[in-house]
């Protein structure tokens, strides 16, 4: 069995080895999400995952490689969720429901930990160029999904043709990421809801213009 690991240590793994590797990544992803990348040590990952240090080093040559694997796994999870959610959005009401789901999911922990991708970006963007490029691809894909929604709006006559859907998608992604960060700071999702709602209100206003 071979795993697809473009930004981290790629090795041929047995089923058992793949399971161990996945467990290490899942535990590391959780710790890095809750504590931040900088505050998470490999010793903590070893202790929390129940694997030995030699097992961890068999799969990851160091912390950077583990962080890259966490980015890849987190990105796959979020993109799968967003592809599924945004592919169904064809009206402004659908887009507001997408916002509600994002905000409500973040409310489960009072917004304390922010966006899993955004948190990783804040921690590694200045330190690891390979990780930064992987994050840039993931944010690009997410923005692309938003742009496709806005292009469907144009096709269906909801948005005028002369609106730049690429720029609107970028601005909406900025509102989402900034909303997550303000929610994390306030331990309250209200500013996140406000940030995304203001962006959607602007998009709705464009739809009403002649």
């Amino acid at each position, binding site marked *: 069995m071979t795993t697809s690991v473009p930004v981290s240590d790629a090795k041929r793994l047995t089923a058992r080895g793949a399971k161990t590797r996945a467990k290490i990544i899942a535990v590391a992803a959780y710790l890095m999400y809750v504590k931040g990348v900088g505050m998470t040590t490999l010793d903590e990952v070893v202790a929390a995952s129940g694997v030995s240090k030699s097992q961890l080093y068999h799969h990851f040559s160091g912390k950077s490689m583990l962080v890259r694997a966490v980015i890849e796994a987190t990105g796959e999870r979020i993109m799968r969720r967003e592809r599924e959610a945004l592919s169904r959005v064809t009206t402004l009401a659908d887009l507001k429901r997408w916002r509600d789901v994002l905000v409500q999911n973040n409310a489960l922990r009072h917004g304390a930990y*922010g966006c899993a991708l*955004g*948190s990783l*970006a*804040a921690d590694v*963007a*200045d330190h690891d160029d390979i990780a*930064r490029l992987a*994050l*840039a691809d993931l*944010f690009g894909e997410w923005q692309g999904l938003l742009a496709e929604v806005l292009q469907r709006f144009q096709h269906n006559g909801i948005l*005028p043709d*002369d*609106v*730049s859907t690429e*720029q*609107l998608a*970028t*601005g*909406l*992604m*900025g*509102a*989402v*990421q*900034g*909303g*997550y*960060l*303000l929610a*994390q*700071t*306030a*331990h309250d999702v209200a*500013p*996140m809801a*406000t*940030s995304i*709602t*203001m*962006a959607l*209100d*602007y998009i709705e*206003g*464009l739809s009403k213009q002649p």
Partner: protein
Amino acid sequence: MKASFEEVLAREAAALAGVSDAEGLNRWRIGVLRMVTDADSPYARVLQPMGDLQDRARFVESWSDLIAAALARVAGGASNSKSINVSQMGVSVVAALYGGAVLSRVAREPSPLRISVGLALAPLLPADEDPSRSSRAGLSVQ
């Protein structure tokens, strides 16, 4: 970090006090974007999710309030602005600064930050107020 929060708030109090119309708001927008994209500026530091959480929460709230007060003055002199909630818009502008800064750091280029802030300010700073804006989306691409 606390010193950076205080320095940015002092600078912003002075800069935003002079904003009373769309032209002034646009000048503030250009100035704040210049500061945020300067890696050595305290603005770049405060837009990273670092420092004491309570200090950061107070900073975000104070900056949002300063921006909202300026937006209220701009909205007071603008037509078609009665429906704008300047308090919420102040929050969305600060969110755009934070979110846009993350996207720009990852992409290593300033346009996501400029576009995010442009979208947040668009209700009071439409595209036709700024010749650098290229689209009806009201988003700066300068």
